[in-house]
């Protein structure tokens, strides 16, 4: 990018300029995108429901405790308490892109920063920050559930150093966020993108349970293997994780970014 010296042509009689930044940094763009994730009614409801759901999941944990024989490790509640956020945060990822096109705020966003790559990068960075925050909430919720298990029940809680469940949960969340972002960028329509985002995993997971060819193909299309990533996996399983990733994350992101650059903001 050439650095042009834009001549200062400001007429003397005009009101003195308001103090502005000389250039827009990616840090500024990311802060703005983070703010946009929480400053609409729809997004606030989404986050609120996810947090309330997490609290409900912690409560639900205690009713399911009887299913656990023997000791309980502190990350055992994770599979349950991470579910609400894991399901709803990727919807935020979809919305951050689809809202710009559906609500037509693209006109404002790209008038403020005409270089779309920077805006897209900032949105992805903001979603990355949300993923980290999500991981923190997972950990906190699981810890709270584990801490309360001892006093409230007759179970023994083991504070093991095995962080694999947490790592898996974070990886799955990150993949889901990236996938949501890709669908949002490519489909550009909120209801359609959200619907596709939910239907495809269900469809491929159930296809993989069919006998015969459909089942075989389904196993390569389904993201079920992503949950095994931090555990020992066979080459086949890695291959299946790879194709599912390419199809439901890399491809939507690539197509979505391409489309975001091309489409007119009207």
């Amino acid at each position: 990018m050439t650095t042009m010296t834009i001549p200062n042509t400001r007429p003397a009689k005009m009101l003195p300029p308001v103090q502005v930044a000389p250039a827009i940094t990616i840090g500024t763009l990311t802060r703005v995108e983070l703010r946009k994730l929480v400053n609409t009614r729809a997004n606030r409801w989404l986050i609120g429901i996810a947090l309330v759901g997490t609290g409900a999941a912690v409560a639900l944990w205690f009713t399911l405790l009887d299913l656990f024989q023997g000791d309980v490790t502190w990350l055992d509640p994770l599979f349950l308490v991470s579910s609400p956020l894991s399901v709803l945060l990727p919807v935020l990822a979809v919305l951050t892109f689809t809202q710009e096109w559906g609500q037509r705020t693209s006109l404002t966003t790209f008038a403020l920063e005409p270089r779309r790559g920077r805006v897209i990068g900032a949105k992805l960075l903001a979603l990355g920050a949300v993923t980290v925050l999500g991981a923190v909430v997972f950990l906190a919720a699981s810890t709270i559930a584990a801490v309360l298990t001892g006093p409230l029940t007759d179970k023994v809680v083991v504070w093991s150093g095995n962080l694999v469940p947490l790592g898996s949960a974070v990886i799955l969340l990150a993949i889901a966020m990236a996938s949501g972002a890709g669908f949002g960028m490519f489909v550009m329509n909120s209801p359609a993108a959200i619907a596709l985002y939910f239907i495809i995993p269900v469809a491929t997971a159930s296809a993989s349970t069919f006998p015969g060819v459909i089942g075989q193909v389904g196993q390569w299309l389904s993201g079920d293997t992503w949950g095994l990533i931090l555990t020992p996996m066979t080459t086949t399983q890695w291959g299946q994780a790879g194709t599912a990733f390419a199809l439901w994350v890399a491809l939507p992101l690539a197509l979505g970014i391409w489309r975001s650059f091309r489409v007119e903001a009207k």
Partner: protein
Amino acid sequence: MITIQNLTKRYGSFTAVDDITFTAPPGSVTGFLGPNGAGKSTTMRIAVGLTRPTSGSVHVLGANYRDLPNPAARVGVLLDASAQHSGRTGREVLTLGAMTLGTPQNRVDQVLEQVGLTAREANSRVGTYSLGMRQRLGVGHALLGNPEVLILDEPANGLDPQGIHWMRSLLRGFADAGGTVLLSSHLLHEVQMIADRIVMIGQGRIVADGAIDQLLSDGTDLETLFLTSTMSTSREGIAA
């Protein structure tokens, strides 16, 4: 200053903007007029980098809009006041703009006061706004960076008489202080009152371009000039 040089935009076989050239000089209000579908909005979108031209160029302050490091600090844009998230408050919309621009936070309050939105209105969601309130918010957003150029697509649309009067003084004052205004409008009597120059476009081509005094020197009014110049290119003209 806005300079448009041999600008063309084609969508497949349809030519929306056909080799147009004109200048909106500083210190003046340039009225950009034409029937619906003539190419005004397309031209303005190209001017602010939202649409890529097929050929030709638009330079704002001597540069491509995309090359300005913080464009809203120098060019205020209002293309469509209803293009805002209905779940966001007016204050939030302006705050996002102020954050991107890097202005101090009190700038939002200053602008709200300048455009006549009360604190209660500012804290309501845009979805509850009337058309006039959206326009005021849009104009406010354009003014956030205290720019030297304003590019406005039908800014007085939906404003009540007080609002139209306010817009007139605002734009006139802005131009008199040396700023550049490129303004598209269908309110021809309004435009006749504030514009210094007129550019008329029909079916993608310039049909009139000059100082308003010269164009109307033979005593016609703007409406008559508009209707006769664009007759063959408007819907009514084509059907007739």
